[in-house]
């Protein structure tokens, strides 16, 4: 029974921490009310031994007497009374006050002192409940410090809330997520983590000038070097950039399952996924309504597909890492003896996307009528030379894009099996005409904003 005293002594006196009843209840897995009592008894016990070592805060809950409405206060606890009268501006209603006060403020009241503290018991006409909120080794100057402890509670909150005395609600319902034993909230994390490298990779010729320089060098060296050289690198990059979008493409292209009615029942979460499918392919509205959905989509895949995707994803990530490493030598590579190295370095996996010719545009994935990928563009670049003149240079470069699906895509589609798979079956597309107008080289909003 004295375990808690030991725990509290260590936490408060040794580690110099503030302990709230919630923290204690989570830490010791006891009911919050028990925790409140423990705090009280520890406080009393410790301060009897050595007065002034512990400082408590208290919660007082009750109705306060108000100067004007004092007489109503008691009767007004029945909410009916307020119904009867119509005050000109507002009805008077019963007000309960929950206040957090420090020990000093409370004591100021309990001990006979002429001047009552502002937030103390005498302000209350009726106190419904009172308990210890927290214990600290020092008087808390600013009670807001307690928010930090509240954050720690949040981290500890994995324990069963029933033990702690949170009011249970049997009606609470969550969206079912298929085949995810891990908590749903953690699920998206790994995906997001995989994003940053992709991002860096996909960024067309990075904005920093230093990074800009080596690239053209390697590009211009390409013609003289064996023709193969730029291609593996490019295709690697392509795969790299496709990593995340492919996942979406896969998910979006998933065949719809026969849909049952309820989302509540754990057996038919496919309903939700079906519904989301519908929406995703239906319209990509500009208010961002659907953009987030593919994330959820991923979770609805069935086990085998997910496994396959995971494998591929892992492969891709590995490839990306390799290509990352590879890029460093490539950037500095001016001499031909680097080339053999380059030819060796492509991992044995390029089979999934076998192609030798260099396409003007590579689609790495489609999701719900939006194509993502990279394309080759000639970019104009203006630099100031050492004399202060502006020099315009044309440089080839890769640029990632994502746009509405154009009808000229299908012939290209065979380049990538994903594209074929995700080809949405005969859905009406509003943007088709518009997209058709956009040639391969333009039409992407990103190209408009990218550095000239």
């Amino acid at each position, binding site marked *: 029974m004295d375990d808690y005293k030991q725990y509290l002594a260590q936490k408060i006196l040794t580690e110099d921490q503030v302990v709230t009843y919630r923290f204690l209840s989570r830490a010791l897995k006891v009911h919050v009310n028990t925790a409140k009592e423990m705090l009280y008894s520890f406080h009393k016990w410790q301060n009897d031994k050595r007065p002034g070592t512990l400082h408590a805060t208290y919660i007082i809950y009750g109705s306060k007497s108000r100067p004007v409405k004092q007489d109503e206060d008691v009767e007004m606890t029945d909410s009916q009374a307020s119904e009867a009268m119509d005050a000109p501006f507002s009805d008077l209603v019963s007000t309960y006050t929950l206040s*957090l006060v420090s020990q000093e403020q409370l004591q100021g009241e309990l001990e006979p002192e002429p001047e009552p503290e502002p937030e103390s018991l005498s302000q209350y006409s009726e106190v419904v409940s009172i308990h210890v909120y927290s214990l600290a080794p020092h008087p808390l100057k600013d009670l807001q410090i307690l928010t930090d402890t509240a954050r720690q509670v949040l981290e500890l909150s994995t324990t069963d809330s029933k033990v702690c005395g949170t*009011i249970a609600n049997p009606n609470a319902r*969550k969206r079912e997520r298929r085949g995810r034993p891990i908590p749903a909230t953690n699920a998206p994390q790994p995906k997001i983590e995989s994003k940053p490298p992709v991002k860096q990779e996909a960024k067309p010729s990075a904005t920093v000038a230093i990074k800009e320089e080596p690239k053209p060098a390697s590009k211009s060296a390409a013609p003289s070097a064996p023709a193969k050289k730029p291609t593996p690198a490019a295709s690697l990059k392509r795969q790299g950039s496709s990593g995340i979008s492919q996942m979406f493409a896969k998910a979006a292209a998933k065949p719809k399952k026969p849909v049952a009615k309820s989302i509540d029942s754990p057996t038919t979460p496919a309903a939700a996924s079906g519904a989301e499918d519908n929406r995703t392919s239906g319209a990509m509205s500009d208010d961002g*309504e659907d953009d*987030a959905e593919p994330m959820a989509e991923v979770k609805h895949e069935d086990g085998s597909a997910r496994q396959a995707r995971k494998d591929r994803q892992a492969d891709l990530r590995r490839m990306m890492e390799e290509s990352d490493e590879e890029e460093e030598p490539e950037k500095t590579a001016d001499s031909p003896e680097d080339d053999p190295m380059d030819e060796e370095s492509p991992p044995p996996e390029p089979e999934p996307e076998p192609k030798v010719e260099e396409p003007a545009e590579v689609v790495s994935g489609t999701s719900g009528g939006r194509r993502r990928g990279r394309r080759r563009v000639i970019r104009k670049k203006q630099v100031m030379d050492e004399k202060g003149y502006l020099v315009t240079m044309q440089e080839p470069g890769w640029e990632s894009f994502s746009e509405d699906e154009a009808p000229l895509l299908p012939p290209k589609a065979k380049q990538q099996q994903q594209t074929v798979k995700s080809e949405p079956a005969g859905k009406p597309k509003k943007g088709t005409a518009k997209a058709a107008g956009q040639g391969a080289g333009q039409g992407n909003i990103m190209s408009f904003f990218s550095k000239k």
Partner: protein
Amino acid sequence: MSQLNEIQGNLLRNPTGKAEDELERTASEYTPLHSFKLDKEKSYQQQFADMYFLRLTKIKPALEERASEAWRHTIIGDEPAQKAQRVLDIRQGELCWVSGTVYMDMALKPDILEDVSKDRWISAPISNTKYYADDGSDAVTLEDESGRIRLVGDFLKNVILVTGCIVAVMGTENIDGELEVVDLKFPDLPPQPERWAISQPPVTKGKSHSKKSKNEDEEMVDAPRKGSGGKIAIVSGLGFSGQGASHGLELNLLLEYLLGEALDPTAQRELSQISRLIIAGNSISLEERIPIDEDSAEKKTDQKKYGYDSSSYNALPSQLLDEFLSALLPTIPITLLPGAQDPANTSYPQQPIHPAMFPLSRAYTAPPASTESGWLDTVTNPWEGEIDGWRVLGTGGQNIDDIFRYVGSNDRLGMMEATCRWRCCAPTAPDTLWAYPFQDDDPFVMHQCPHLYLVGCQPEFGTKVIQGEDKQVVRLIAVPSFSATGEIVLVDSETLGVSKVKITTG
């Protein structure tokens, strides 16, 4: 110390070691209506004029019925009041009555025509200043599709009038071409549905309902007397901010209060009666947002290709809100209305905050495309629905804030009452309250009178009951900002009685 011993829920004692009851929260009967939901693919090509026309045609029949009833036998100076079909039909010197839309001509009111003529294309920031000028320069005019006439007379001083409300006026046109108003009628409260009009009452638990007041008894004499006997908690202006809100502790206490962890077993039992939380706007605070200075914004433009620019956008407020919601959701269902500062569209009706804002809480939202309401229901502002059988109309407060600018008074409840009597919850849209240009329907017209009308983000708490001629009874609640007052409102879902809880520290 004697005082302490009298406190019933005194937990200042040594651990008793007795097992605590497991509390279970009262169920909430909840049917949201999607009256204010906009199409995902919406066009902004339309003109706003249609809204006024729609509003007038929708409200006019009821208004004229009421007006002709009232003024049928009105004879002033041997002259009976004649109905004028249109504003243009008013003859000088004849006593007549006419209905139309009020337009307030105010010098301080923003005017799109002025902006256009002065070549200003950037919308002015929304300020809290009043349009109302005390010097009497503001002109009240009445217009319909035919024309416009200025209203004068002392009678106007007694009523709240704003642009866009539909009224009928009786009077005579004077020599200046102005209408001297003798009397004025509002459409008054629309018909009120019975309790449990849409949803089904839950199976009775054999509770006695003897504590009902007279009003309520009249009101729902044949409605089934069931229900959970719970309470609805309403809060607005939680104001989560990025830089450690000054009321962070109050928010924590609120969380503990709603979770039922604070207080003593008896009080906790009462807390378990709170069956639903309505958050009426401004969950996120704008105040401490740093203005983006030009220089850094320019530098960062090309790095914003994906995601957001962390130098100009702080995700922390929404993360904190998400944590708050996700902590509460396992125990209490939440209806979340957006407000002026929330990440939703600015124009009325504000569309639901997208669940993607809440990575932790989104599992509780309804799947997209499903018709069921989510456990966390992110809804429109204004929002209409049925909670425990009562028709509830809630807004994030912009409608009343905007009306407030038109009038000299501070009586927020009076303005709320006026919107009910006008049968229009946002009359100043689209004039000064930004609104979607509706083409086929003006959703702001109240077809059915709510039982509970709540408006969030108000400067102070207020509540009253208004009654209509048809025995409609509406409970009005002005919900104060939690960040400013620390107050939350509890509404008894059986009686619609109101109480509030104030959370303070210090």
